[in-house]
């Protein structure tokens, strides 16, 4: 059994099957890309895992304990943290304070939280901008800030929801570098992207979902040759 396991997870909105019988496993320190066309149910899957939605059926295990339908705050405290498609920065505080909020997940002491936050900012390369108001930073920095914030919570697994979309190629490159560095911390990663070129080089494994169902799961090279995957991205050759 891996670090994290999803078993037959379903999420229905009325008749719409947004996530349908998805199951997969994540091992410790593994980087897994989760890809699929728009509306495939990637973000819904994230929301189910992190407690923002209640799963219709199915089970989720983390470190061999069931975490299905726990509240998102307790899931975060257990060690699964996520970022959002829209960064959702705390705009009423500066960059450092944003990260301190994350660090407070494991400590009650402001000094210790600040130290942890500075570590996380160092790691993500935002240390120069720690005193900036979070209104003043670019989208790329905002996305990195949300990664720093999540790192400060001392997670064992991070779910990145399109951390690199909307960035210029140059910004995306440095973002990929940072994310690659996370591997050295032995933190598992699930990366949602719909741009294949970003996910393929950094992932150990790629999971492809389409209309809520898992259609492929394997090493990037193998998946990119999968007929069904090519069909869903390029359209079928009926």
């Amino acid at each position: 059994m891996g670090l994290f396991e999803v078993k037959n997870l379903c999420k229905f909105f009325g008749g719409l099957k947004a996530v349908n019988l998805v199951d997969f496993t994540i091992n410790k320190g593994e980087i897994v890309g989760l890809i699929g066309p728009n509306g495939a149910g990637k973000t819904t899957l994230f929301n189910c895992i992190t407690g923002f939605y209640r799963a219709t059926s199915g089970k989720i295990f983390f470190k061999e304990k069931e975490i299905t339908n726990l509240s998102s705050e307790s899931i975060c405290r257990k060690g699964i943290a996520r970022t959002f498609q829209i960064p959702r920065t705390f705009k009423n505080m500066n960059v450092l304070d944003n990260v301190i909020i994350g660090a407070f997940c494991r400590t009650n002491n402001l000094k210790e939280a600040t130290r942890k936050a500075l570590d996380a900012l160092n790691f993500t390369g935002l240390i120069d901008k720690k005193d900036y108001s979070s209104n003043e930073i670019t989208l790329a920095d905002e996305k990195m800030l949300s990664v720093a914030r999540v790192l400060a919570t001392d997670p064992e697994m991070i779910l990145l929801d399109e951390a690199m979309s909307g960035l210029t190629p140059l910004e995306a490159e440095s973002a990929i570098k940072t994310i690659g560095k996370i591997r050295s911390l032995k933190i598992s990663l699930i990366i949602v992207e719909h741009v294949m070129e970003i996910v393929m080089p950094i992932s150990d494994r790629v999971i492809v979902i389409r209309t809520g169902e898992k259609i492929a799961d394997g090493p990037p090279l193998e998946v990119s040759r999968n007929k069904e995957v090519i069909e869903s991205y390029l359209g079928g050759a009926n």
Partner: protein
Amino acid sequence: MIKSIFIFNKVEKIILLLGMIFFILLPFCIKNIFAIHLMITIFLYATMGLSWNILGSAGVVSLGHTFFFGTGAYISSCLLIFFGINPWIGMIIAAVVNLFIGMIVGNLFFKLAGHYFAITTIALAEIARTIVINWPVVGGAVGLFLPFAEKDSLSNFQFPSSKIPYYFIILLFFCICFLVSNFIFNSKFGYYLKAIKASPEAARSLGIDIKQCKVIAIAISAVFMSIMGTFMAQYVLYLSPETFFVFNISLYALMVAVVGGLGTTWGPIIGAFILVLTSEVFRIYIGGTGRALDLMVYGIIIMLIAVFQPTGIMGIKIRKKNKIKFKKVEARR
């Protein structure tokens, strides 16, 4: 723990020290009773603002803080009138009762989001007022007089001959609440409240239990407000729904905090000075009939704040500080 109550930067420490000396010496220099009364009002509103501020910093808008104010006053005073319980003890009992009421109210009402919560708090205060008006035991609409003491006594919380002891008591209460809220805003809890205000989803994803935080905030807020209610009752020695369960009290608590600067420790005291002084100036120069004018000026102040300075007076300072830091960072590059 004790150290972190006194987290202030150098400028703040100096202002605090000078302010304390000034306000302690003030009643010995001014013999004008009205001026003392004015200072009491300012500190009363400032403390109410501090109370509102704690909840407000989480982005929760309460328009019914008079509910806690009134229940605090009525509980302690009724204990005094009917059971002869010392008002100090009554104050503590009222505060504890309000702590639990705050938690219950929070648990019930925080299912409602935003404006719906605000509306519900108005309803809560109005219900309390209607109950009190129609309840003869607690004086109904006419109200109740508190038993008068013959002479000044700290233990009975009554000073018929002078306002100065009241001034020092409210100053003490204000200082305690000020330090408590400073402690809160420099602690995990305060950071969490601000995070909840900025983005509830992000807050949840970072392990913040939103409801729990809000419930604690409203409970603390209710305790402050309750203590102010008891103080006011002992100050005017007359209990009536028209003094303690009025929408104006809720409004004052809100305005003091918003004008001064939401989520800042210093905001409410600045807001209280501005609002009380403007209203008193209008009353002095235009007289009793000019009373509506100060309300109009409040309206204008609120509009100006909302349009030009949504972060309140303290926001000006914070913005400046950020600018300086920004320049420093730029220069270093």
